[in-house]
């Protein structure tokens, strides 16, 4: 890779050992991924979580070494031109009286949050930064963590980001640079897999099913959807999250809808797809069935807001809960960004949800917290997929309406 004199100087330690290490990460990563140079980055979504819960049982030395790495990163300033937001944590910074919200971990996360803010990060603590003001423009160069947000930024917004991890996003934020490879280059944004959709998609969760099925077929490729209309923002969110759960998708196109696919031909850059699959009503039914492993109907958890709920979803949930009561023994979580919760507070939705016995959870989600559950109902395919392994719970994935009905009844009542 060709470096400028200034970049070379940072690599040689001219700006101190930590920034030299950051430069080394970016240069080594760029070289193995085929980059020829580093280019300026305008927008970073960084991962700065204290990992205790996710690494439950880890030695004190492991946690302390990891957290010291976060502290070191936050002792430097983010690049002046860069918008830098922050991904979810493994705890909520609110008071929450559950053993999983370990006070020591909350204290450390607050410390990191304050340090990050002083460094120039905006501590959004969300997996959906595009819902709380970090909305990159067409062509904007980004360095985003959160696999679902990466797909959303590339596909729906036409911004450009490879799949970033914690070290690369921190390095990008502090140096204002990213290695230029993958979907940052035009030629790597062409579709690889044609997904012909004949299924009727009636809800965000249906779009999640499409993504979950297509992600498996696409692997690391770029699926192109034909035969579907324009998704809503919430539908697009579910599609993108599921694509990066069953697969390792960085971006997709929706023919005639997304900004780089005015036509099907344009989505494939005038070439042919490498493969094609179809998604019928039967595929839709089977995909839901593949993420339902419940052996009974009694439920104890309903998790909504994966990825973090939009204000529109919170309004819908509030309208379904108004004047009703969540069943005894059921935890109803609505996960969202602190910024969105502020809006929900102001508009009265929070009160409606809390009066019904539900709870709005900020900064994290129950699966990130490894909140114990026996049987979970959720409207997110991503949540359903990971909760099975992380929490060890049985899961039922369903549209929002049936999720709320299950919360009120304390048992799964079916889809209709």
């Amino acid at each position: 890779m060709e470096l400028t004199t200034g970049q070379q100087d940072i690599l040689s330690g001219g700006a101190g050992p930590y920034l030299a290490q950051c430069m080394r990460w970016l240069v080594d990563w760029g070289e193995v991924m085929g980059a020829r140079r580093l280019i300026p980055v305008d927008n970073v979504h960084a991962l700065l979580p204290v990992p205790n819960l996710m690494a439950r049982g880890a030695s004190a030395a492991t946690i302390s070494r990891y957290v010291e790495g976060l502290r070191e990163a936050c002792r430097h300033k983010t690049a002046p031109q860069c918008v830098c937001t922050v991904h979810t944590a493994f705890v909520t910074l609110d008071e929450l009286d559950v053993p999983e919200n370990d006070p020591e971990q909350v204290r450390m996360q607050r410390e990191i949050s304050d340090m990050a803010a002083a460094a120039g990060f905006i501590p959004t603590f969300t997996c959906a930064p595009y819902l709380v003001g970090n909305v990159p423009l067409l062509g904007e160069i980004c360095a985003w963590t959160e696999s679902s947000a990466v797909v959303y930024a590339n596909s729906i917004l036409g911004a450009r980001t490879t799949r970033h991890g914690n070290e690369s996003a921190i390095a990008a934020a502090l140096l204002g640079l990213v290695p230029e490879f993958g979907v940052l280059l035009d030629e790597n944004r062409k579709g690889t897999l044609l997904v012909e959709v004949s299924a009727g998609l009636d809800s965000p969760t249906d779009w999640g099913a499409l993504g979950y099925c297509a992600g498996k077929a696409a692997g690391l490729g770029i699926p192109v959807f034909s035969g579907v209309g324009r998704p809503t923002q919430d539908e697009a969110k579910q599609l993108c999250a599921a694509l990066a759960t069953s697969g390792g998708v960085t971006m997709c196109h929706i023919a005639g809808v997304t900004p780089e696919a005015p036509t099907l031909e344009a989505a494939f850059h005038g070439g042919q797809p490498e493969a094609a699959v179809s998604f019928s009503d039967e595929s839709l039914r089977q995909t839901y069935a593949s993420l339902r492993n419940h052996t009974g109907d009694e439920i104890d958890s309903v998790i909504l807001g994966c990825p973090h709920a939009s204000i529109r979803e919170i309004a819908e949930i509030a309208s379904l809960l108004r004047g009703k009561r969540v069943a005894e023994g059921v935890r109803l979580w609505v996960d969202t960004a602190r910024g969105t919760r502020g809006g929900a507070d102001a508009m009265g939705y929070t009160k409606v949800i809390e009066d019904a016995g539900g709870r709005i959870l900020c900064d994290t989600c129950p699966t990130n917290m490894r909140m114990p559950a026996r049987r979970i109902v959720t409207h997110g395919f991503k949540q359903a997929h990971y909760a099975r392994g992380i929490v060890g719970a049985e899961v039922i994935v369903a549209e929002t309406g049936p999720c709320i009905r299950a919360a009120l009844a304390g048992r799964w009542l079916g889809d209709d």
Partner: protein
Amino acid sequence: MTEIRGRAVVKGRAEGEALVADAMLSFWGEVDPVSGEVIAVGHPLQGQSLAGRVLVIRSTKGSSATPMVLNLAKLEGKAPAAFVNVEVDGLAALGCIVNGIPMMTDLEQDPFASIRTGDHVVVDADQGLICVMVKQESGGPIG
């Protein structure tokens, strides 16, 4: 012993017992960094430990926290010894770079046909070479 040439993604040399599945794997959410075990329900590697193993899979997938989980697993002594992947997900490459784990791809033979779980594998990414020592079947007398 079989020698297979391939392309080094991340240089270095390591050896260990192979863990092989023609599947993708997300480290966050599908691997516990403290036990080193695959926790993904229904995954072909579910319940297997990655610690010290040469991980032969199609590629990583899923969460962007893969490098983070790899880092925690490394600190806990539970990370794989090396990666042999058919396709390169940038997140695995980043995690291997940061944690000093060798990674290879583009083998001249299909790794799922030529490497079996339990084989002893030397990954010499400095030379672009993999050596496979087939696991000796143990057990009772033949017949």
